[in-house]
């Protein structure tokens, strides 16, 4: 189960990276990166998974005393939230950049923005 989730996550990451590196369109690159981000998030969550356990919320189903035996690892869950938000922030930022770049050159092809080199 965890392996499958992990594998899925990794495949998403790889696919995202491949997409980001082969698509010259900036918007496509951004989309590819969101895919990769998603993959990362999947990996994060998958690592926190313990077989046969439940969400880390101490309610009626999970009494405090048995919490340690009943819940999955809450830390990756917390981390993934942060990761998602950060990914979101960066994606938004990239989009804004993409917009500015488009305004600048009338193009979204990343190979058109190579004035700075060597």
């Amino acid at each position, binding site marked *: 189960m965890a392996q499958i989730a992990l594998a899925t996550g990794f495949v998403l990451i*790889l696919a995202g990276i491949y997409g980001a590196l082969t698509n010259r369109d900036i918007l496509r690159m951004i989309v590819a990166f969101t895919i990769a981000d998603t993959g990362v998030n999947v990996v994060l969550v998958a690592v926190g998974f313990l077989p046969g356990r439940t969400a880390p*919320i101490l309610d009626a189903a999970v009494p405090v005393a048995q919490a340690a035996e009943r819940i999955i690892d809450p830390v990756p869950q917390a981390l993934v939230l*942060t990761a998602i938000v950060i990914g*979101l922030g960066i994606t*938004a930022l990239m989009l804004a950049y993409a917009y500015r770049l488009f305004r600048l050159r009338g193009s979204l092809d990343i190979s058109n923005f190579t004035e700075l080199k060597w």
Partner: protein
Amino acid sequence: MIRNVLIAGLVALLGVAFWTLAAGYVPDAELNRTAAYYAANAQTDVGAPNIVTGIIVTWRGLDTLGEVTVLFLTSAIIALVLAQSKTPPGASGAGFLPSGELLTTGSRMLLPLITLLGAYVIMNGHLTPGGGFQGGAILASGVLLMLLADPSHRFAHSVIARVESISGLAYVLVGLAGMALAGGFLDNGILPLGRFGAMLSAGAIPLISVLIGLKVGAEFSSILESLEETEDA
């Protein structure tokens, strides 16, 4: 094409690394010591049934403050990025097709519900799945709906900015208060932990959740708005 093949090769090599990771992965049978500590001390330390929220808001509160800052930064920077392209107020939106009746009416109906849901998610973050981020995002989706429904509508920038600033500042102050009154920066113990599982419990978590929610909502709104206000959006 060659380039793509090369990159595919690189990605494949990276995949090998990942494969090593995945293949060697054995799920833990037991909670590791950190998680175990959280599970054991959620009630006594933070008083929040939702351990994840407890981690987010308290134990790893600094991360969360950082997250909020990420959004703050993003919104500020997007405003900066798009600043030069911004059209004068009032002139924008002229080029849009008017949004449909369905959308206008639907948004009018949904908006209060969305707001309510957002508020709920925020307030119950320490009890049930949810929290400031989730709620804030929901609130912002309401704003998005409004923007979609009426592209030429202008929000009061200063209001959003104030909410953004005040909630952020308040968050920092709460953190500092933790240093002054309790165990350290961002300690939620500045307020009484209250009864475990109650609405107003878990110390400052609900307060921080609210601040986060407001902050996140405001930031998202601000981002959306900035994006929307570009001249040909």
